[in-house]
């Protein structure tokens, strides 16, 4: 029963947050002046004429970091249930988790040695 109420409250909070944002956006849309000109709607490019499209390929490093994040985040999520039950699981649970973390660390050092996290050339 309590849990249902708790999630309902989260839903209400979401409705309030969305409502606030929508009201504010509508308000500024209605109140603010609208004098559109071609030049005003140009993109900012530090004062010079816009060259090409901004949606160009960018450095692969960012993508590599994003993939590594997904990998590690999943492993961290595995640590949470273990941490909650740490006292109940006792020494056996601790040793098992050392093995898990060691496996994680092997992967981590592989990435570091492979230069996956190297930003400077």
């Amino acid at each position: 029963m309590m849990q249902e109420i708790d999630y309902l409250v989260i839903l209400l909070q979401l409705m309030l947050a969305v409502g606030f944002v929508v009201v504010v956006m509508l308000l500024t849309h209605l109140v603010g002046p609208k004098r559109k000109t071609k030049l005003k709607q140009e993109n900012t490019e530090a004062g010079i004429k816009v060259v090409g499209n901004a949606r160009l390929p960018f450095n692969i490093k960012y993508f590599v970091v994003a993939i590594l994040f997904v990998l590690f985040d999943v492993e961290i999520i595995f640590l949470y249930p273990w941490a909650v039950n740490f006292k109940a699981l006792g020494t056996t649970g601790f040793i098992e988790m050392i093995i898990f973390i060691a496996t994680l660390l092997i992967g981590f050092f592989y990435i570091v040695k492979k230069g996956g996290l190297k930003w400077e050339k």
Partner: protein
Amino acid sequence: MLVLNTFANWNWVLITDKLILIGILFAVALGIAAYSTLAERKIAAFMQDRIGPDRAGFFGILQPIVDGVKSIMKEEIIPGRAHKFLFILGPCIFMTVALMTYAIIPWGKDLFINGKPFSLQLADLNVGILYSFAIVSLGVYGIMIGGWASNNKFSLLGAVRASTQMISYELAMGLSLIPIVMMASSLSLRDITEAQAGWNWNIFYQPLAFIIFFTCALAECNRTPFDLAETESELIGGYHTEYSSMKLALFLFGEYVNVFVSATIISILFLGGYHFPGMENLGLSPNWLSIVSICTLFAKIFFMIFVFMWIRWTIPRFRYDQLMKLGWQIFIPLCILNILATGLVMTLFTR
């Protein structure tokens, strides 16, 4: 059928209580975020031997309201080459997410109104910390969508930098809290707070986790020394370069809500939440105790917000490769070491 049963079983008194609390907390959160902008400018001014805003009302006290009205009255410009829908959606997501995070915070001990307990916590989820992580990481979408939709090179670079930085520090942030969860045996923020009564603040047991979590909180909020997403000297305004009027205000204001929430979570997890030593021995009635506990928590929150601002005007910005190196190659191994050390100490000494 199940849905109907649930509906009939709702405790409408409790829901009304919660609605009142939602309203109060919303006003408090927005108020504190608004006055954080003034506090930041005043603190910056004092640190740089200036006066700061002092025209709108005494001591500039009306400045946040004036700023808010101004940003509503401004013309909203959407660049011709931008993706219109996503351009509007970006700041909306960012602000909505910022307003969601504080739902799980226990603000103080229960109040008693006509003998009935009135919980000062919107939702005591048993997955508390995981909920806050889940919501906080959604903020990346707002930044990435906004930056990409602008169709501006500076915005795109700022957005990519910001999102990469945020996801990198989320790892260290998640890992740094595991020792705390191990000690409290719970993810609920209420339980973690109750475990810190008296002098048992987590900062004394886990100073390393505190330092790492605090640094990651700075990075998650895109604050100096980790504000690489909006380095003025190279990226103009970063992901919000193209934004104007209320959409810009939502980005900037959302950042201050995030600072407030981060300061709150740090106070709850490491600084004992609403506890202070000797609180139970004061001999106060439950209601006064509750009020004192709320004031204690807010004193801690204001102090942490002040530290955030203090750091902003003291420490220079990191370089991007240094930032990534700190997050991945220093914090993650340190966190794992901290987990193992905590586990070892707990295994050896508690039984």
